[in-house]
């Protein structure tokens, strides 16, 4: 079973890379952007076949390693 995770910086945390991407896009003519925030995407292929159990495990992974909860939020995306 594959489970996806998206990690983003919390709203109040400065994202200088997102800012530079925003400025660059602006310079390219995409000038209707309010804000760009950069994040991380993970695909975890697990042997677990039970959806709830797999999600619970991935949540634990997020808390323990994948995200730093001081600055980041995680979102677990539905498995397939």
């Amino acid at each position: 079973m594959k489970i996806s995770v998206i990690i983003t910086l919390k709203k109040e945390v400065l994202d200088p890379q997102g800012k530079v991407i925003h400025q660059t896009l602006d310079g390219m003519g995409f000038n209707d952007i309010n804000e760009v925030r950069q994040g991380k995407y993970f695909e975890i292929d697990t042997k677990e076949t039970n959806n709830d159990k797999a999600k619970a495990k991935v949540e634990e992974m997020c808390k323990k390693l994948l995200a730093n909860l001081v600055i980041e939020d995680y979102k677990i995306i539905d498995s397939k």
Partner: protein
Amino acid sequence: MKSSVITFPGSNCDRDMDVALRKFGFKNKMVWHSDAELPKSDLVVLPGGFSYGDYLRCGSMASKSKIMQSVINFANSGGMVMGICNGFQILVETGLVPGVLLRNKYLEFICKNVFVKIKNKKNTYFENIDTDVLEFHIAHNEGNYFCTRDQLKEIEDNEQVAINYCDKNGNIEEQFNPNGSIKNIAGIFNKEKNVLGMMPHPERMIDNYLSGEDGSLFFSNLISNLK
């Protein structure tokens, strides 16, 4: 006095630290990250570098390596643990010191000498040191210290700020902040002050042939405090 320097895959300041510690009288041992046990130590150092290629977040992989459980136990039982640069990033990832180190505000790798003001001398690291301002070297891409407002209040209430970026006269102002750190914070302690994490490299300032002697001041003071 016995010290241990932990080498992770990608550490690159471990040998400099070894040279510095020996120069000021420590009997130092190099310890590999996959060892389970720490040798008997009066000081454990997590050195600078790029452990695990800075994958995921700087220091995040190293913080889960085998030796770190022993380091965490050692710190929690009052042992002296110092993390320099990547070592500081590893410390924040273990939770031994609060906060995180973000990408530098202006997205540049910064490599230069800076001045830091010692904020708190009531600890084994800085007690009796004969100056308030030290010139150290920094070389990092992720040294922008950040924590939540609640954490900052706690850090300040517990006098956990160790050093702040400043000018050579000790003025702590935004213009002397190289990387965007909250309140110019360059180094912090845990609550008990036995764990110190800092971005500057004292081991790069132990000889005039390098670029100064303020690291000598730091290490010679540290070993005499430990004795």
